[in-house]
């Protein structure tokens, strides 16, 4: 599903975010990216949906070399990739329903699809009863559920999560992780960058550790360190 071949990414200020990284992630895998802040986890994530481009190496997503992708095709790549973030990135002026519907509307899905898909996905994340609320009326955990719903409503092949539990307390984090696990069980490949030792050690999934741009560990059913 995802292949990195000798990928190197250096930022303009000289920081090496990723050095000669080669990784293969199969369809349906659940992968944790761990490492200290600034180690290159976020860059790894951003390379996958082409928010960044590597200066060396090739990245294949769903069988396509995304380095060869012309810029007008990038949106179509991103329709196959859902993203969630530490800060949720919800639109404060829209209700929960509208936030999720927005993701379908802006890629031109017909209203009938929006009307059926959005309530279904809100039920899946357990927020069917809060559809008419605004994000600032929800708890952090609920807001993250909305953002998971938005990322998954289009049934992407891949779900990228950049520290999704970074702003949440441990109990709430467990709820979010259960949700991501359920999504993973539907066949969606999940790549999650995290600092959360407890989650990694409990879930016992594949762990890729990055240290100053180098992949120093790639372990099936691994732990945080």
């Amino acid at each position, binding site marked *: 599903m995802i292949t990195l071949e000798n990928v190197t990414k250096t930022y303009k200020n000289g920081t090496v975010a990723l050095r000669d990284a080669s990784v293969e992630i199969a369809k349906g895998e659940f992968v944790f990216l761990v490492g200290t802040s600034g180690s290159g986890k976020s860059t790894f994530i951003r390379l996958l949906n082409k928010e960044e481009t590597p200066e060396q190496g090739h990245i294949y997503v769903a069988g396509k070399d995304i380095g060869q992708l012309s810029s007008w095709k990038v949106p*179509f790549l991103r329709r196959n990739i859902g993203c969630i973030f530490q800060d949720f990135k919800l639109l404060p002026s829209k209700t929960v329903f509208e936030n999720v519907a927005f993701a379908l509307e802006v890629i031109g899905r017909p209203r009938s699809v929006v009307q059926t898909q959005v309530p279904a996905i809100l039920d899946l994340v357990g927020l069917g009863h809060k559809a008419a609320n605004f994000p600032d009326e929800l708890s952090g955990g609920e807001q993250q559920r909305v953002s998971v719903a938005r990322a998954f409503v289009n049934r992407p092949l891949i779900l990228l999560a950049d520290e999704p539990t970074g702003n949440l307390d441990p109990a709430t984090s467990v709820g979010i992780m259960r949700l991501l696990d359920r999504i993973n069980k539907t066949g969606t490949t999940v790549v999650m960058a995290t600092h959360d030792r407890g989650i990694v050690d409990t879930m016992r999934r594949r762990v890729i550790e990055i240290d100053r741009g180098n992949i120093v560990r790639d372990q099936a059913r691994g732990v945080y360190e």
Partner: protein
Amino acid sequence: MPIKADYVVRETTSNLGRNISITLASVLTVFVSLLLVGSSLMLRTAVSNATQRWQGGIEFVVYMNTNASQDQIDAVAQALSESPEVEGYTFFDQQASYDEFKRLFADSPEMVDSVQPEDLPPSYRVKPVNKSADSVKSLADTFRDRAGVKDVILASKTIQLIQDMSQSLTLIIVVVALGLLFVAGLLILNTIRMAMFARRREIEVMKLVGATNWFIRVPFMLEGLVQGLLGSIAAIIGLVAIRPLFEGWLPKASEIPLVSGFTVSTGSLIGIYLLLLVVGALVGTIGAGVAVTRFLDV
């Protein structure tokens, strides 16, 4: 991928309302600059209409009698072709004169109705080799007494002056207007930039979930287009309002005997209005286009 019309309309109108003061500034700048362009074009059309017969170096006109015989007409033509002092000439028969008359007085049908082709004299419009006043006068005089010639009328310095003045006036106005249009374009660019800044979170999410670049751009482009169009529509309304004043201010044909009809026909006005619409739309779209390509990178 189809872009839904209701989405675009909703986004564009809410964008326009968001920055009402700076939107107004852009629209007014487009309005003022296009009003200038429009009135200078109107002036130019009026002058060229009035001095129609005197364009392209024509220095005098030989009018034949309306009842001049074909022989008399041919004789003048032969004299003109043989004279070494004549660079060129054009013959307007009665029908051609009538057509021209109809065009010049298109807005006064009662004048056109009162005249038939037979009432108008056929004429030769003559371009002499030597343009100095004395030699033109002596050349013109040689035709005055020919058989069948009714009159010979010389272009005076006034015509030259009017043409020159209108030309330099138009130039100055157009330069100023172009400067203003550039300013208008920059204002629109900034309006769009502010609109994009106000919506940066929406834009970020749209990119994230895979909205195409054009889907994101179109509402902003339309916002610029609407601003440009509003400005040009205001300018057209302004021109419609000042047209009677303008025509009242210009000298009447009777006040300057050499020229006819300082009027602007409705036909050429529509041409001017269309031009203003196109220019307004272009300024808006280009301003917005620069904004979205410079500041909306994916």
